[in-house]
């Protein structure tokens, strides 16, 4: 029995280190993912390169590639997801995509053409948080944190946090408010989103 102990210790150490190495590798991959996606996004948003619809289309493509829109939509609906019927959920998913594209283009658009540099990353629960900076000439950099979730497949972004302000949390608060004001009915939110997407077209 006594002789087995060093073996176990070695095994435990080996496992710990290899898990550590794998985690580090995954983290580096995630950083790389954000660096390339972030740069592409900022370039897509460059205002004078194309028309607004072209920009939105290109951004929409990037968004569906890099973001887990289904999950974001669900979190944004918060506890009301449970209350929504299947039809409401599927209509919401569609409307939410339009809404998030417009919102992201508008709110991240002011950083168009700047460069993004990844600073660090760290694990947080089941996610990796990648900290980056948008570097602007002659002005202080803007801190942007990305919450990246690696499910079974590719890593996907589920939240963008600009200077401590989470896009997902903001949307969740806003949606909750709209629903509360229509008597706790998800239909109230769908109506507002419908109006919004109708107005955009």
């Amino acid at each position, binding site marked *: 029995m006594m002789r087995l102990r060093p073996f176990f210790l070695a095994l435990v150490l080996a496992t710990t280190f290899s898990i550590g190495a794998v985690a580090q590798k995954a983290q580096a991959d995630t950083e790389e993912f954000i660096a390339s996606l972030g740069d592409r996004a900022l370039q897509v948003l460059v205002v004078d390169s194309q028309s607004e619809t072209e920009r939105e289309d290109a951004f929409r493509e990037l968004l569906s590639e890099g973001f887990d829109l289904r999950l974001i939509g669900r979190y944004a609906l918060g506890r009301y997801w449970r209350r929504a019927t299947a039809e409401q959920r599927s209509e919401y998913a569609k409307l939410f995509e339009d809404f998030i594209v417009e919102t992201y283009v*508008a709110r991240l658009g*002011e950083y168009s053409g700047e460069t993004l540099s990844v600073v660090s990353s760290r694990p947080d629960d089941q996610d990796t948080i990648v900290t980056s900076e948008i570097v602007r000439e002659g002005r202080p950099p803007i801190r942007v944190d990305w919450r990246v979730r690696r499910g079974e497949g590719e890593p996907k972004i589920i939240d963008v946090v600009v200077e401590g302000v989470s896009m997902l949390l903001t949307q969740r608060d*806003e949606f909750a408010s709209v629903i509360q004001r229509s008597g706790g009915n998800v239909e109230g939110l769908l109506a507002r989103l419908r109006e919004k997407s109708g107005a955009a077209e």
Partner: protein
Amino acid sequence: MNPFSRISPGRVFAATALFALAACSTPGGEPTQISDPLEPINRYIFAANLAVDTTILEPVATLYRDVVPDPARDSVRNFLRNLESPVVLANDVLQRDMDAAGVTTKRFFVNTTLGILGLFDPATDMGLVRRDEDFGQTLGTYGVGPGVYLVLPILGPSSLRDAAGNFVDYYFDPLNYYADNTDRGHLTLLRAGIRGVDARARTIETLDEIERTSIDFYATIRSLYHQRRQSDIRNGSAPSLPRLDLTGDAEEDRTASLEN
């Protein structure tokens, strides 16, 4: 003349009352949403503020931005920020952040001398980066929660804690004593006015975009205000992200994936 002669008992009482209210509404942990029991009144004031903004503040800010060149506007802001140094310093000390107090002090001396009375900001180039502190944030570092959300007339989004903090910050500012004791109350107002116009001039597009893309502008601003303050209190350091309470949702995930 006694420098404190102008501090009326009424003001002190109001500050104390607000402070006490803010202190007793300390919540456990850090809720992601700010409580808003005064929502109907807040929404009313918010709408009134928006009307004032559309008719007066935004046009003035736009004009200011169009007429005054960038470097001059930066100097205006640098000058006002340099004047605020005592307030920032007092709060650095109250937060027991002596490194920050050192930076604030050095910034003040560098910018007042080399920066010609604070019109320029050579301190930042020397690596002395400005960090804004106020008594609302100081209370936050003591564990005082925001209390309830408030929309103040003209001044905009605030909270019980932060409004109480503003009262206290007033007394950290030597300029206010000077203005009070020499019957130059208009100086304080003028400064607040310029600061407001300058701040508004820097957010014209941003606010427009937020309003355009929101389906509930009031709720969006409330959320942004709260998140921003929480982040300022943490000074942007870890935990850098607002906590997402996803525990209930994770359960839901599993159910949902089974359904699909």
